[in-house]
């Protein structure tokens, strides 16, 4: 104990390592960061590579020639591109707001020990994590029962509730909000809604931010719902689906080219180029990469804050 106390006095930061260890850690983490960044840089480079260069030498960090062709082409996609881009934002913003609201409102009672049906609702959400209905029953419910077809709701509603997020949120409530605080609020005459909005929510902002980040990422990257539920109204598809469709078309033609014969060759000629796909990836990644630092502040904060200091 005294040794530690002495050590602390000598070095202002307790968790200091020797220079050797520091170098190793920096090296490892630096390498890891590079592994994350390099693919993205590569994507950007490819998006600026000319088609001729790709044909000649394939993907390369040092292409034979540069070109803005892919971006020029994305702008020619015109309406569809911007509409899809806007849809992506719309779906993400509305979806995130609604799903976070639902998640908090579901998790809060589960954390309250004085709630009688706590066990039942806990089980109800947990159960769906283990046993899923499968794709077809889900499709039937969403399409025939809920009418989720060719509308924005079809791209938002199926992902509104996530049991996993509820568990994260409930645990966050449990670890950061002491029961005493709620009791104190009740004694001071606060109603249930007042307690939630004025006392609890300000404390759990980091938790909400974490959930919001997860949901925003989920909505932003979602394309499968569009594939399932959007048949006729292509005006409402998000950018991700636009990109996935190009990719899947290419994959399908590659897989079935020997069966489709001349038709496949003909269709493959109409497909957008590799560089265009990479340009779209850039379009998709940039906004969410920009949003990340804002959330990150809360996520990091979430590890350290609490309402009752020991």
């Amino acid at each position, binding site marked *: 104990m005294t040794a530690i106390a002495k050590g602390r006095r000598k070095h202002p930061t307790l968790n200091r390592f020797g220079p050797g260890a520091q170098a190793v850690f920096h090296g490892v983490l630096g390498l890891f960061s590079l592994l994350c960044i390099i693919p993205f840089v590569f994507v950007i480079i490819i998006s600026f590579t000319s088609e001729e260069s*790709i*044909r000649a030498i*394939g993907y390369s960090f040092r292409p034979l020639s540069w070109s803005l062709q892919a971006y020029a082409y994305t702008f020619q996609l015109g309406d*569809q591109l911007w509409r899809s881009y806007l849809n992506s934002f719309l779906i993400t913003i509305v979806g995130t707001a609604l799903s976070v609201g639902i998640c908090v409102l579901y998790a809060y009672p589960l954390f309250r020990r004085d709630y009688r049906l706590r066990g039942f609702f806990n089980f109800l959400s947990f159960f769906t994590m283990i046993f899923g209905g499968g*794709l*077809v029953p889900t*499709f*039937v419910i969403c*399409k*025939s029962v809920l009418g989720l*077809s060719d509308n924005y709701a079809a791209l938002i509603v199926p992902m509104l509730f996530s049991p996993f997020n509820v568990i994260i949120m409930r645990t966050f409530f449990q670890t950061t909000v002491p029961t005493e605080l709620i009791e104190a609020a009740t004694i001071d005459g606060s109603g249930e809604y007042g307690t939630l909005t004025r006392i609890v929510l300000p404390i759990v902002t980091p938790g909400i931010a974490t959930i919001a980040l997860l949901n925003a990422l989920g909505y932003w990257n979602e394309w499968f719902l569009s*594939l*399932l539920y959007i*048949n*006729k109204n*292509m005006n409402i598809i998000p950018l991700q689906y636009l990109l*996935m*469709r190009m*990719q*899947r*078309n*290419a*994959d*399908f*033609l*590659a*897989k*079935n*080219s*020997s*069966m*489709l*014969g*001349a*038709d496949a*060759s*003909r*269709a*493959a*000629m*109409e497909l957008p180029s*590799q560089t265009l796909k990479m340009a779209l990836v850039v379009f998709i990644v940039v906004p969410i990469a920009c949003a990340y630092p804002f959330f990150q502040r809360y996520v990091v904060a979430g590890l350290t804050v609490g309402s009752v200091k020991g």
Partner: protein
Amino acid sequence: MKRIVSLFLTLAMLLGLCAAAQADDLPTITIMFHGSNVSDDSAVLEKVNEYIADKVGAKLEVIWGTWGDFDEKVVNTLVSGDSDVDMVFTCSWSADEYNSYAKNGYFVKLDDLIAEYGADLKAAIPESLMQAATIEGAEGMGIYAVNGFKDTATQNTWDVNVTLLNELGYTLDDVKNLGFYGFGEIFAKAKEVKGDSFYPFLVEPMVAERMVTNSIIIAGDAGSTNLLSLYLNPEDVSAEGAYGNQILNKFATPEYKAFVEKMHEYYEAGYINPALAVAETSNDTRTNAQKTADYLIGTQSYAYGYEFSADVLARGVEVAFVPCTDAYVDTTASQGAMMAISSASEHVEESFKFLALLNSDPYLMTLLNYGVEGIHYTLNDDGLVVFNADARATYSPWTNGMGNVTILPDTESEGKGFREAFKAYYAGAKAIPALGYVFDNSAVANEMAALGNVAAQYALALDCGATDPETELPKFLEALDAAGMQTYLDAANAQLAAYLGK
């Protein structure tokens, strides 16, 4: 007061519903096409609905499936019994498997409807195609889809860059006479003239294998990597091949061994681009090289008139397609593009009337396939279709996926008389002895999955010549045996014998 207002509102709502119902007295039928690139169909559908209102008694809506999404969409639609979709594309060669869906009761049996409303349809489509569609389905032997009259025969060809060939001092006759096993000397010359980075032999490895060994695809065999072979008689495709009507393990025959050995020799000599041996890059590499005519001899599964199509003309060199055999009608090709009516449809009769009309009425087929005259295309002085590129960019369905394409007008690039010749070419194609045979793999599905994995590991690299058959082929065969090749093979042969015995 409240009560009066609510009563008034309810009344208004009911009236509104009535009005809506009256305006909408024709039922809507929905069709799901494959492989289309359509973003604006409003002008076309307006005309279509004008035209079919009396003839069919329904309004049409179209779901334009794209290549990549169609399989998933159709599975969901059929399995969930979605009554919003009345007609779907189906075929024998991808996950839209006609035979298994019909067997599982997802498609309506059409025989009675054909007898009642199908006179025009029967006149428009050759009897052989009707036969090819006749299978054992959920409601017994019958026709479960309207079979499209398109390039209904298979023909594999060498895709030759004639301009370059002539530059090298060879002619098309040399290609024909030398054949696959003799291409080496032309390739060597090409390499010498065009330099080291030029790859003269542009193969789709799996297609090349079938071309050289004269084997065909068995419908129902494992998807992307076929495991089974049925050998043709290259001299007369309607006669039995060297092994008779027997299905063989594709990779265990002497023909296969000879093929991969030669491919390995070509690969080692640098005639084949290594990117072709990698599944992820194979197709892109091939299409790109074709596009820029950066090859000497390639493989191409051929459809009549392909040499006149825009994408071949765009290569900017003279291209010729040298066939390995006559065109032959096999199950895969003769069930290549069909339209079935979903069992969940609430408008079966209207749907069938529509399909019958689409396949027999040139106006409707042209309208749906090429668009509206004056918007998507114009007719030139010879009466040939000239496409308007801008409008066509928002409306280009998959031509062959729609049905009877022989009733389409000729386009400018195809030239006058093209469709007639096309029709004659395929009407005259001979059928292979085992036509109509479809391997029902449901009893050996586990073996098929295991074998598919093994084949995915070895086949492409071997077919492309990238690995040495001396060491790899025995390993491959051993792995196949361990995964249950014999069981799989026996099941296929037992079914074939039963089919031919019938």
